[in-house]
């Protein structure tokens, strides 16, 4: 049974989506429970695999039974659960499970009368994201990328109004990214003849200084950057996530860009190897400058936003800068920081959007200046919000502190001081914004506990939304406390042994 676990991770949401598409025409209320069931199976399998991988190493699975053949390499499609992706698989399926429970109320209000296929598309998006993470075949990654992309265009377009143009721009940029990725795969295939990640990584060192492989690498990189909204391809993200319905943003924002970053990490660490990266110094410094620019520009824009959802989207953009920069530092703390941050940021962004969703559900809008008294109206939600912001700023013991610590360490070691400055600057900006929100939500109304002041009635979010939000926020602290265990048992083993310490 345990050797079938890798494919079960994918089959759970895929079959859940198909059954939800059937149920949508007979008993529409059944769509969500079916999807939740699929995600429960998937999360359970992913969690079990974390322990199996920590004990026994990488688990490989060959679809259709077509594994390696003498003289040809792997002839079928392989899916792999190894040190690099096992934590992310558990994180993606877990976050998707919590979000699927959380979004029920939002879907009923924001999408009244139109929600026939929402949960089917939700589940298909998660299938695509899990597939990108688990696959061991570079062309299979492209198909999974398009599954995730098409579902996300539809999920964003549910927002109507301005969401249509935002979704169209996302479609153009996303397809450009996917096509560049496919072209890069073509260049690699022309030189190596195989699509299996393990086989390609064995062939590339033998080919030496091949121009075609270099061009292929750059193309794949550009494709991944367009998909993860890395500067200068970031234009589509703020509009898309702000105009999408909150239910869609809650699943897209935490996961879609992180999985694209994972794809870049996989190509950098496994397919091409860190040696190759270090010997192409031109791209390395370019990527580091772009990362710092991404962080600084996104932080600057987040200061001017008045809409909570747009604000959160700019936070997402700056976090992407952290991870890409950490990966391109190409030393042990930098890569460790990037890998920890992928999981940590998925959790932080999920908690952030869940808290914002609770506020939108109760207050009907998400404008910053209209948040007066929200700390009294929704204490639990705002507590979760403050914990999440603390994690984003980098306050111990939340997970945000540890990943930032690794990144700063790595940058200092490599002597890339502009990256250190950018990291510290963005923390400062986030602190400013947090204090502004506290000021608006707490100080601008007369304190109800003091005699003579009007009472502010509590209007907390419903339990089905509140419990996932609180759980996610507590998870940030748990993740932070468990970081060293995770790094020692899993992440450190994902890094190549010959890496600079």
């Amino acid at each position, binding site marked *: 049974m345990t050797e079938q676990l890798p494919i079960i991770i994918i089959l759970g949401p895929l079959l859940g989506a198909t059954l939800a598409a059937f149920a949508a025409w007979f008993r529409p209320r059944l769509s969500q429970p079916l999807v939740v069931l699929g995600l429960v199976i998937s999360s359970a399998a992913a969690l079990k695999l974390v322990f199996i991988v920590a004990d026994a190493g990488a688990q490989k*699975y060959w679809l259709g*039974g077509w594994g390696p053949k003498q003289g040809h390499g792997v002839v079928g499609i392989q899916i792999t659960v190894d040190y690099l992706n096992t934590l992310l698989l558990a994180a993606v399926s877990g976050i998707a499970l919590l979000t699927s429970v959380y979004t029920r109320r939002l879907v009923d209000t924001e999408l009244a009368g139109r929600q*026939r296929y929402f949960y089917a598309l939700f589940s298909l998006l998660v299938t695509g994201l899990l597939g990108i993470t688990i696959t061991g075949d570079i062309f299979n990654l492209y*198909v999974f990328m398009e599954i995730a992309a098409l579902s996300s265009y539809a999920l964003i377009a549910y927002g109507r109004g301005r969401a249509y143009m935002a979704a169209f721009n996302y479609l153009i940029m996303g397809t450009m990214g996917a096509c560049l990725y496919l072209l890069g795969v073509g260049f690699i295939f022309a030189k190596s003849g195989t699509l299996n990640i393990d086989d390609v990584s064995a062939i590339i060192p033998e080919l030496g200084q091949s121009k*075609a492989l270099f061009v292929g690498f750059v193309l794949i990189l550009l494709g991944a950057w367009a998909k993860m909204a890395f500067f200068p391809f970031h234009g589509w993200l703020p509009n898309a996530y702000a105009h999408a319905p909150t239910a869609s943003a809650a699943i897209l924002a935490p996961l879609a860009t992180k999985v694209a970053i994972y794809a870049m990490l996989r190509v950098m660490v496994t397919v091409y190897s860190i040696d190759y990266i270090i010997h192409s110094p031109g791209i390395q410094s370019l990527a580091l400058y772009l990362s710092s620019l991404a962080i600084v520009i996104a932080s600057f824009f987040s200061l001017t936003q008045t809409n909570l959802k747009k604000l959160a989207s700019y936070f997402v953009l700056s976090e992407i800068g952290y991870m890409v920069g950490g990966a391109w530092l190409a030393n042990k703390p930098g890569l460790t920081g990037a890998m920890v941050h992928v999981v940590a940021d998925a959790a932080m962004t999920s908690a952030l959007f869940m808290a914002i969703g609770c506020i939108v559900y109760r207050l009907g809008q998400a404008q910053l200046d209209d948040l007066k008294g929200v700390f009294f109206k929704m204490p639990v939600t705002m507590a979760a919000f403050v914990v999440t912001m603390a994690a984003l700023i980098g306050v111990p013991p939340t997970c945000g502190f540890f990943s930032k610590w690794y990144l700063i360490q790595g940058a200092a070691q490599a002597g890339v001081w502009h990256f250190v400055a950018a990291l510290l600057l963005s923390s400062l900006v986030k602190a400013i914004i947090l204090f502004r929100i506290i000021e608006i939500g707490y100080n601008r109304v007369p304190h109800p506990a003091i005699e003579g002041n009007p009472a502010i009635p509590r209007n907390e979010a419903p339990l089905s939304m509140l419990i996932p939000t609180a759980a996610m926020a507590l998870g940030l602290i748990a993740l932070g406390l468990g970081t060293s265990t995770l790094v020692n048992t899993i992440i450190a083993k994902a890094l190549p042994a010959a890496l600079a310490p």
Partner: protein
Amino acid sequence: MSTLPIWQFDVLLLILVVLFAVVALSIRNLMGAAVVFGAYSFMMCLIWAGMGAVDVAFTEAAVGAGVSTVFVVSTLYNTGATVQRRTGGLAFKLFIGVVVTLAGAFLLSALPDFPDWGDAESPANAAVAPYYITHTIADTHVPNVVTSVLADYRGFDTLLETTVVFIACIAIYSIMRVDKAKLETDEPAIVAVPRYDPGDSLIVRQASRFMVPFMQLFALYVIAHGHYSPGGGFQGGVILGASLILLAISFDLKSLLRQWSEKTLMLLVAAGVFLYAAVGLACMFMGGDYLDYGFLDSVLPGERDMARSHGILLVEIGVGITVMFSMIAIHINLASNGRFDRGL
């Protein structure tokens, strides 16, 4: 074969293809652009057939030159927008032009590193591909190597591809479908009454009435015979879908919806994906890996080693079902602007 002037044809087609692409993108009449785009797809199909990729050419003819062009024309018909506005912004276009030229030069810089064109010993041709060619008969008894690789060796990719078609169908449905009850209050209708009523043409109606049964028979042949000739689930499914789209265009969208209701269409779209995934699950229940058809030999009819061939046929049928009904549903959504009443 070697006496025909093949390379002259190839060069001519390649030049034509670039010409058509430039024309399609610069012509200001959008209907004209759609038609030239169809011609461009057809030229591509000929080039690929010339290079020996017959299954790909078949699919491009059905999907690219056929269905894609119909989709673009339906969109334009519905909006009544036929002429592109003359716009400025020359500086931005020049900037993009420079970026794109540099990108092209960057790609061309890899040219000397490529193996010779047509080299049978190049890595792409000599690493994994020979396994498929030499083992397909022994493993699957399917002479069409493309079909056996598509549905067996790399069957997982095909399951995902079918899922992509499924997602496109429900995505377009979710984006476009407008409830009849909210029709007047919610969003304004665009083009009202067509100036030319297609129901008036006797010739079109009778000709399509005559053609549709043959199209469907041929499509079923393509699906069933995909093991031995160019074809398979995708091509057959698209032709089946096209036959019904032809009925919708030549008669009336409503008459098609009377035969195939909205609910039936959307349920069958999901049914094909479910069939494919269920075949894989059945393999797991029989003790094998996912999509390992060899383990189904006790439930499938015929000899033991024909199990893979029958498994391939089953999944091709699943693919055909999903593709057929997706194409129809997408056309209805695009042509009627989601109202499911009157359209192209």
